[in-house]
């Protein structure tokens, strides 16, 4: 059972790291923020799996925090950041 949780967590980590490509490539600031959003959701999933795999239910509380607050960065981006519209690549 535990081995299965670890495998899935590792797979999710791979998808999360693949999201880094989108952050790097952009090309729009919105694309980069979208990838950061992906990090939030996937991070919650990984934390839930780790809570099982490491037998630490307290990690569910850790997962609660990005679930609750991931949107704050997005709101800040939409309301406050004024990035250059396009970046020459």
């Amino acid at each position, binding site marked *: 059972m535990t081995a299965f949780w670890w495998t899935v967590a590792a*797979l999710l980590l791979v*998808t999360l790291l693949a999201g880094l*490509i989108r952050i790097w*490539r952009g090309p729009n600031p919105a694309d980069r923020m979208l990838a950061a959003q992906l990090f*939030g959701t996937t991070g919650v999933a990984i934390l839930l799996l780790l809570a099982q795999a490491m037998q630490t239910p307290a990690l569910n509380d850790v997962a*609660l925090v990005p679930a609750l607050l991931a949107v704050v960065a997005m*709101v800040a981006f939409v309301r406050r950041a004024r990035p250059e519209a396009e970046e020459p690549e």
Partner: protein
Amino acid sequence: MIYLQYLLVGAGCLFFIVGTLGLLRFPDTFTRIHAITKADNLGLGLLMLGLLPSTESLPQALKLILIWLLVLAASATASYLIAHYVKAQSPDALPHADTTSEEQD
């Protein structure tokens, strides 16, 4: 029961992979929002369902569901906010959003 858990968590993981693939493959910001919002939320939902039988108590199970609901509400709102932002940045570009695709993998 265990096989059902494997199935659900595996399917959830699959949707996460699909979401990231969509994020990397789709041609413009709007379509990427579609991919990631829909696939990731379903993925997290299935994964959470798969983890439910392993919880120790009813409130703990409810807490997992609560986490999923929070993510759902957040990403529904975030998807609107960012789509609205992109549209406001380039109001004329919207109907032709897909002709400005930057890369095709």
